[in-house]
């Protein structure tokens, strides 16, 4: 399994998670071994994480996701790219995203 993500990768939410916005918080529940654990394994994304996550299903490369977010928030591209890769690395470690392809 891929362990390092680059800007040319396409990341998508794993099929084995349930992600929902609840009371203003964006939560992710991983389903491990066929069990979603609302007691011990429930995660919430901060605002940055939530913005990145919502762009994942578009099927774009990470560099395009970062570019879109950079325009949307009028923030420096290099910082956004760093945030995107940082989050994807974390989510990949927790098996919440899958890397679909690399060009």
């Amino acid at each position: 399994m891929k362990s390092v993500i680059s800007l040319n990768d396409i990341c998508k939410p794993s099929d084995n998670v349930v992600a929902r916005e609840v009371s203003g918080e964006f939560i992710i529940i991983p389903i491990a071994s066929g069990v979603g654990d609302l007691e011990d394994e429930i995660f919430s994304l901060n605002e940055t994480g939530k913005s990145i996550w919502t762009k994942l299903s578009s099927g774009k490369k990470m560099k395009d996701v970062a570019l879109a977010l950079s325009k949307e928030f009028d923030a420096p591209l290099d910082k956004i790219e760093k945030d995107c890769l940082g989050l994807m690395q974390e989510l990949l470690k927790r098996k919440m995203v899958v890397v679909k392809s690399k060009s």
Partner: protein
Amino acid sequence: MLKARAESSRFVQAGGAIALDGEACVDVIRSALAKNADLRLLVRGFSMTPFIQDGDIITLSSLPASGIGIGRAVAFSRPSDKRLVIHRLVGILRKPAVKYITKGDNVYRQDIPVSRSDMLAFVLRVERGGRILSFGTGPERRVIAFLSKWNILWALTYAGGRMIPRAIRQKMKQWLFF
């Protein structure tokens, strides 16, 4: 309130408590079950005492296609407010349409019958204090359903329970649940 205990990091928060109730809770459960997953969650409330108690952790599983057996503890979305309720199935109405009669073991009255579309899951497992409880989820559940339906269980819990000395009640609990 649901607590996350995993390690937190820069983007992913895994601490504190997340309120997940009402329709949001039902929505999350439906989504997880749609992925053929079971779901572990913390129980809050006393309506199913003594078989499911406040603070127990239950595992919900998809309802079998063959039908829901009377006596099972089931999770459903209460039609009046769409909140998650976990009570025991004590009967099934066949006409004019199929409706499920549920009741909390520790509640005097039955719930308003619910349709199949409101039924979410059944309780596969109950954990208390790190141990898995089997009493109440096996074949004996049909007897429990009968006792619950006719309020015999409720009477035993309230009226009978007060006449039995506390020490004996504690012994009975230990014998039945641990």
